[in-house]
């Protein structure tokens, strides 16, 4: 499903950007920069065309509710589709247009609030879905046009901040204009989607999430994906890329740069507004805080992780991040996830790198020894473990967990692990390998004792970390193209 369109500039990889490099050379250099296996897989995948992958993906997704009957899991799947849609929309603005739009979530909110006002007892208006949804998409597109206007005069950071102010304005208005938006208490009892015959598409059957919404969302996803795909492969798509790579040159070549920017904003906003209606119709309520900074960062992480500019990539990003955020809500799953990711990662890296394998082994031993020492000195230091079961038993014997940790332990350990990790990234050679062992153990200690008990900040911390680490190590994400600023 990767882009079949011409590739932009690539760099030589780890050494940073290259200026004016030949495209072919650059692409091969980039392939070399990737782990070899990954590049082979990617090339194999490219043989099959994108619509075949799309059909396969959506087909599997459709089968999912048959396998999984839990209403909660189905709802997570629905949310994932929503995030996939949002990521697709943001990808138009950021990935294709190269415009940093920090007001994107406001359009999501505008869609949801518009649906809430047009189809709820709040004003007693109950427009048929077939009318209200297109109207809302149009409203979203128009709002996108309006927000796109500043991009005529402003670029880069200035544009980013103006769009962020737009989000803040949206937030201020929805929180304070109580007569219309219900203020912080939101709008409740919003109608479900209506079918032409006058029936309502039920949101739940006997208290369990109704699968029909998952299918509706998937159908919309397919339509949006294909529409945007075709748009990107058209003249407009090529013009967007030229705009992204160098607005000045594009303008000099006679591209209607201003209109292209507006079109990008508007397409993104329309998709976001459409997703907003889905959100409002299923959950039946809207609150201002659903459409704020956290959601914005979540969508950005998805787009960046997957690879901005690559449709398949951003969908993949949403597929990873959305379930991840759900898993991190729960302490037990969160613990398993952390240790599987930690040792799984070390094992995969260690297969090709003996030093990492040794670090992993040393960390394991280090943990058991430290745990034994702590237990010998004072049993209370290791008594704070919850539960039992296969995985918890291992953790129980490995990580120190004080029963009633002193108040200073959490901040000291947390700041300590950050400082240690940063130091490790500076050190080189054997010193780093030795420093890594206690650092990893301290990380596990912090995860177990500080972060598990407070899932909400903890999962957002993970998001922020993913964003920073990605930008530093691999700004093109999993599937994206590495881009170079042309000087």
């Amino acid at each position, binding site marked *: 499903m990767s882009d079949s369109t011409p590739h932009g500039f690539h760099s030589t990889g780890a050494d*940073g950007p290259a200026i004016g490099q030949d495209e072919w050379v650059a692409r091969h250099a980039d392939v070399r920069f990737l782990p070899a296996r990954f590049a082979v897989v990617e090339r194999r995948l490219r043989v099959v065309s994108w619509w075949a992958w799309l059909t396969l993906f959506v087909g599997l997704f459709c089968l999912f509710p048959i396998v999984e009957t839990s209403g909660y899991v189905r709802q997570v799947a629905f949310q994932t589709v929503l995030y996939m849609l949002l990521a697709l929309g943001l990808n138009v603005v950021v990935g294709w247009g190269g415009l940093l739009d920090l007001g994107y979530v406001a359009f999501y909110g505008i869609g949801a609030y518009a649906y809430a006002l047009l189809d709820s007892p709040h004003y007693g208006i109950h427009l048929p879905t077939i009318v209200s949804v297109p109207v809302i998409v149009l409203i979203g597109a128009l709002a996108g046009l309006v927000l796109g206007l500043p991009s005529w005069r402003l670029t880069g950071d200035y544009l980013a*901040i103006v769009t962020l102010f737009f989000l803040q304005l949206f937030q201020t208005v929805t929180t304070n204009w109580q007569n219309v938006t219900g203020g912080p208490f939101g709008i409740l009892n919003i109608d479900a989607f209506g079918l032409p015959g006058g029936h309502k598409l039920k949101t739940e059957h006997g208290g369990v999430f109704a699968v029909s919404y998952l299918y509706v969302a998937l159908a919309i996803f397919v339509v949006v994906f294909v529409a945007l795909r075709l748009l990107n492969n058209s003249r407009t798509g090529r013009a967007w890329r030229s705009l992204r790579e160098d607005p000045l040159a594009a303008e000099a070549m006679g591209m209607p740069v201003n209109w292209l920017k507006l079109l990008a904003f508007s397409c993104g906003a329309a998709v976001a507004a459409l997703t907003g209606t889905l959100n409002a119709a299923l959950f039946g309520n809207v609150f201002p805080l659903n459409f704020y900074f956290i959601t914005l960062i979540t969508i950005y992480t998805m787009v960046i992780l997957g690879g901005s500019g690559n449709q398949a990539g951003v969908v993949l990003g949403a597929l990873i991040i959305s379930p991840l955020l759900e898993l991190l809500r729960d302490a037990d799953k969160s613990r398993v996830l952390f240790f599987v990711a930690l040792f799984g990662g070390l094992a995969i890296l260690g297969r090709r790198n003996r030093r990492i394998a040794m670090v992993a082994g040393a960390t394991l031993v280090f943990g058991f020894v430290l745990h034994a020492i702590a237990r010998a000195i004072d049993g209370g230091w290791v008594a704070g473990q919850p539960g039992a079961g296969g995985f918890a038993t291992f953790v129980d014997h490995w990580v120190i967990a004080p029963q009633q940790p002193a108040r200073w332990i959490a901040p000291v350990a947390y700041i300590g692990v950050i400082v240690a990790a940063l130091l490790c*990234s500076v050190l080189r050679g054997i010193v780093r390998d030795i420093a890594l062992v206690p650092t990893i153990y301290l990380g596990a200690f912090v995860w177990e004792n500080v972060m598990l008990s407070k899932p909400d*900040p903890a999962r957002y*911390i993970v*998001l*922020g970390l993913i964003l920073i680490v990605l*930008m530093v190590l691999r*700004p093109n994400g999993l599937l994206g193209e590495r881009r170079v600023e042309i000087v």
Partner: protein
Amino acid sequence: MDQFIQLTVDGLTLGSVYALIALGYTLVYGVLKLLNFAHGDVFMVGTFVGFGVLQVLGGPANPKVPIWLVITLVTLAAMAVCAALGVAIERFAYRPLRDAPRIAPLISALGVSFFLANSMQLLFGATPRNYDLFQYHTGTLYLRGLHIGGVTVPLLRIITIVAAFILMVILWFLVNKTRTGKAMRATSFDREAAAMMGIDIDRVIVFTFILGSALAGAAGVMFSLRVPTNVSIGFIAGLKGFIAAVIGGIGSIPGAMAGGLILGFLESYIQGYVHGAHIPDGTQWSDLYVFSVLIALMLFRHQGLFGRPDIRKV
């Protein structure tokens, strides 16, 4: 008239806080051409460090050392921690991206901001922290002060304003009268040319982050001497500081000072005079006016009052 004086003093206090935040934005933008989204959260960390040190020193009511020393120590501690934080952020989140496309450090900065805010929430919770300003040395600093007409201007406000002024003078001196300051100005003017002239760009940038973040720490303490602080304050404070920087012309140091004061007065007068701008439950419509003014300003004069229009060379 009394209300006017009251609002002016309030605007001046608020404005000096905004000016200090704005200076951090302006300094970093001038040197790196980077919008440091994380700056507001550095400020927030400063408010918390100040609170922590205040508790260690025995709290405002019965401090272990003289009250003037308490305020000095609290401010210095916040400045030091924030400076260290700023250096770390620059070293690990921005420096690897210095030559990447301009969108990259911006996204990294968003990540840092999100990370800092949530880390603070993880460690210290979402409850507001109050410096208990009425308690300062059992009220002396707050209840006494200058009498202008029928209004009492608390001593604490005067200290805040004077301290902000002193910091700005020190900054002006550092930037205009020292060698490092000269290097900073040169880097800001043209980074590549400065590097070719033998200026150590990395050092200049680190120095800039130290200055900017230390000012944010001081601003944090001054802010919390006014109202309680909490972990989510960084976002709005950062936006306001940025507005102040833009009003004055981003990259311009006197501009940031003027912009901060203008914004402070604007907010104070809007809250005082525009009907319904300040709703008792704490939600503020005044933000709406402030943000609208900013968007208009950005569109029609984004170089601000003191800034130069940027000329693109092709």
